[in-house]
């Protein structure tokens, strides 16, 4: 073992104290936040929207909808028969030490028709990208990990859309294991590159495809660290004339996630009110009629709080919203808080190191049949030598 544990022990002890200090600080502040939540649920919505406008475009808070912000909704009864579709992705990024330059995107999908008694339909779709046009952009710069991740996100959504087109007859929910706002586009600042713009357009097209199948789509975020509702409560606590970027940055609630708050008010199976995330990217989604709403959900017996993101056409449709809520609660029963279909989609998609090594060997063999030799770099080779050493375990 390379880790010198005795050397790390003092740091671990300090870290433990820090974690305890932070948690006790949260517990002290939480009652005040709860009081604010209840108090601000009755104030004039025009006043709140006025404050949000003053906070500016970059304010990372939650915009309330028609629901009172402290509302809690029990799970509706699920339909007798319904479809759950889930997709997850995994990737191999280009590695200059590998025998060949390529990247791979592997998507796992599952379609379960509840109430049918039939085994689900499962699919694994892997694609290798190895041509220059795939590996380099127009300036000759090699494709980045974040672009590959975004292409994987598009492929996940594409798989949901493909499967969803075959199940229009029953209420259906399609699921992703992350938020709905394309992360890459959210990170790209005011002027995203043309490449990012194209990926975003493909992503939005897939959302439209899913919408036309009359199927709900939701992004499931387990253990969310978002603090959009907490930011809203801080904003509401300020007088309108006090609001400025500097004051907003001095929030006494920094570091406290929304899930801690909703863990206090949501019973098992209940969901929170709907909110809209205030962000530049979400305004682009709104233009495409896919503005992202979210709610928090107590997923069941283990009192886990998840954040569920849905597009506006799901949030504004009582039928689609109900099937999202009730189907998610059914999905989480087996695992205690995480949708079964996502567990299986991940299992179908995951690419292990062993898989990668096997794929590299297959590529080497194919090239060898044509009279050429491809090899790992010496650095990679020597890492494999030392990696095989037997290690003591604790």
């Amino acid at each position, binding site marked *: 073992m390379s880790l010198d544990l005795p050397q790390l022990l003092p740091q671990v002890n300090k870290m433990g104290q820090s974690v305890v200090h932070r948690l006790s600080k949260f517990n002290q502040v939480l009652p005040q936040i709860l009081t604010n939540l209840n108090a601000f649920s009755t104030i004039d919505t025009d006043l709140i929207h006025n404050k949000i406008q003053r906070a500016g475009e970059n304010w990372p808070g939650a915009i309330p909808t028609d629901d009172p912000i402290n509302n809690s909704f029990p799970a509706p009864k699920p339909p007798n028969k319904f479809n759950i579709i889930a997709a997850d992705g995994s990737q191999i990024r280009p590695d200059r030490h590998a025998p060949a330059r390529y990247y791979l995107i592997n998507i796992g999908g599952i379609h379960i028709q509840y*109430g049918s008694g039939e*085994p689900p339909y499962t699919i694994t779709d892997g694609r290798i990208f190895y041509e220059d046009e795939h590996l380099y952009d127009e300036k000759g710069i090699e494709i980045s990990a974040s672009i590959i991740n975004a292409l994987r996100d598009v492929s996940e959504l594409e798989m949901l859309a493909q499967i969803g087109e075959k199940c229009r007859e029953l209420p259906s929910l399609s699921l992703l294991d992350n938020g709905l706002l394309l992360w890459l586009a959210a990170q790209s600042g005011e002027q995203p590159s043309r490449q990012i713009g194209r990926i975003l357009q493909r992503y939005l097209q897939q959302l439209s495809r899913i919408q036309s199948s009359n199927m709900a789509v939701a992004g499931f975020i387990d253990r969310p660290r978002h603090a959009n509702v907490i930011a809203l409560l801080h904003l509401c606590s300020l007088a309108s004339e006090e609001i400025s970027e500097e004051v907003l940055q001095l929030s006494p609630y920094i570091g406290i996630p929304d899930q801690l708050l909703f863990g206090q008010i949501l019973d098992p199976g209940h969901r929170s009110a709907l909110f809209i995330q205030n962000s530049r990217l979400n305004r682009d989604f709104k233009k495409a009629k896919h503005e992202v709403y979210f709610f928090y959900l107590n997923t069941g017996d283990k009192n886990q709080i998840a954040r569920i993101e849905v597009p506006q056409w799901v949030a504004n449709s009582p039928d689609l919203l109900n099937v999202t809520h009730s189907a998610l609660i059914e999905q989480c029963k087996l695992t205690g808080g995480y949708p079964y279909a996502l567990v299986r989609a991940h299992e179908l998609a995951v690419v292990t190191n062993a898989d990668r090594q096997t794929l590299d060997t297959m590529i080497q063999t194919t090239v060898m049949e044509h009279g050429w030799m491809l090899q790992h770099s010496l650095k990679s080779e020597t890492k494999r030598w030392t990696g095989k050493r037997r290690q003591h375990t604790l």
Partner: protein
Amino acid sequence: MDPIFIGRVTRCSTRGYVGALRAPDPELPVFGGFCKAGAQQGKSYVIGVIYNISIEDDELTRQMAATEKPVDEELADQQFLRQVPVEYSVLSIGYQSNDRFIYSLPPQPPLSLASIQVMSSDEILNFTKHLDFIPLILSADNLPADDLLAACLRNAASTRHGPEQTAFLIDAGRTCARLLSNDLNRLDHVLRNLKTEAMRKT
């Protein structure tokens, strides 16, 4: 008739091999069934009998087992689709080379990922014309050798009919009596298990 494949070899030795398949048919593989796998680059087939069929579990399976009312569709997913292979062990009892059966351990085991196929009734009938494989089963350690022997002899008997079947079982019983003459308890156990349903009724 086309050969029936029941998976591939995952690990092996001259004494036997382990095969794996995704989900079992209702009838295959079965305890005491005869099978064979290619070895020596196709020059020979290693013949064996199946014992110890097992299915590995994982956390998700255990979680589902502990659920009061598992959902039908999730149950079907676990049983038929998840890539949790059925594993079975095969005891080598001979090999086939140049159309001859040799009743001893093979010179080489099959390679990993060699396909394993069920032996046809004719192949079982021909292989069991000689009972020289019985000592290899009786001498096997760490497996239920007596039950395995009885199961594979009953299986071999089922490829014969009428008086031929009875004659085969009597012959097999005599061979067992000779080999187990110093352990009458084991012999008794094997002979009791050797009786077919028809013999029990008479």
